[in-house]
Every structure is written in structure tokens, then in C-alpha cells.
């Protein structure tokens, strides 16, 4: 059962990464990327690394995404 969830999580991880790469709206990319780092955090609890999950939560969902959002708003939203 555990491996099934693990598989699902990995699949989800790759999907989010692919979506983040494919999307052309940069803001959406940043948001999807926050979901990606969230998925990473679950994976880390699966790997029994609570410290890392916490850091990824705080950094990936909080700081990095906000930095991306700030930059995107000060520059341009469309990728072309």
C-alpha cells in the first residue's frame, strides 16, 4: 500500500513538473511550482525526513514562490 501511494506521489511530482514546464503563463508556473514543492514535502515525510519537509514547506511554499511572484509581477507574465 505504501508503495502505491509512493508511486502516485512520484507520478504527481513528475506531472506537476511537466505542467510547470509546459505552461506559458509564468505566474501559473510559479503557482504550480509551489504545488510541486508541496508534493516534494509529502515525499519527504514518506522518506522519514520531517525536518526537510518542514523546510521545504516554509521555503518552497512560502519564500521561493513569493520571490517568483514578485519578480514575475515586476517583469512580465507571458513567456514568449
Amino acid at each position, binding site marked *: 500500500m505504501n508503495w502505491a501511494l*509512493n*508511486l502516485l506521489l*512520484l507520478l504527481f*511530482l*513528475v506531472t506537476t*513538473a*511537466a505542467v*510547470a*514546464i509546459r505552461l506559458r503563463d*509564468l505566474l501559473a*508556473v*510559479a503557482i504550480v*511550482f509551489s504545488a*510541486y*514543492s508541496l508534493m*516534494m514535502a509529502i*515525499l*519527504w515525510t514518506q*522518506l*522519514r*525526513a*520531517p*525536518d*526537510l519537509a518542514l*523546510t*521545504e514547506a516554509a*521555503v518552497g511554499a512560502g*519564500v*521561493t514562490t513569493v*520571490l*517568483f511572484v*514578485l*519578480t*514575475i509581477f*515586476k*517583469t*512580465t507574465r507571458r*513567456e*514568449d
Partner: protein
Amino acid sequence: MNFSRMFHNLNYVVSALLFLMGLYTVVVKPNLIKKLIGLNIMETSVFLFIVSIGMVEGGEAPIVAEGVKSSQMVNPIPQALILTGIVVAVSTTAVALSLCLKIHERYGTLNAAEILGRGEP
């Protein structure tokens, strides 16, 4: 290198895949922010890889508590390394994004091809 072994080491395979995806993004996509996203994906993939090394079947988190034997714990070193690694990743991202801001201020675009084209003053 048979399939079942690959399946057993699925985390490794996925992290290699993510690494390649990130690398592809960095190299091919013209937009600088997209490149940075690719870079971040690469970073997380490497982190996933390292932490997976330390995993033990049926392991426990490396926190000393009652009823947890030390032989059951997962390897704490990769986790400690990756804590540092995440910080490094954030730092690189912050520097790169501020560079992006400046580049946009100066060039008015974030497209690598255009920037290269407009490079010469």
C-alpha cells in the same frame, strides 16, 4: 539493469528524470524565469536523490524516542546535507531573480534570444 530493479529504485529513476527535465528546461526554454524554474526542479531532484539514498525499509525518522531502535532509523546525514542544500538553492534563486529584475529593467524583456540579440550597445 532490469526492470524490477528499476522499479525498486523508483525514486532514483524519478529523480534522474526530473533532473533531465530541469536540464531540458534550462537549456531550451528562452524565458529566463522558466529557466530558473527548471533550475529549481533540478535542485529538488538532486535533493530527492540524496535523501532516497538514506532511506531504510520500514525506517523511522531519526528522532530519538521511546520504542524506536537506532537500527531502525533512516540515515540522518543526507537530511542534514539537504537542509544545507535547500538553503543554497534558495540563495541561488534569490540572486538569479534579482538579476532577472535588473535585466528586465535594462533590456525590457526576459527572452534570452532577444537579450542576446540586443546585447551589443
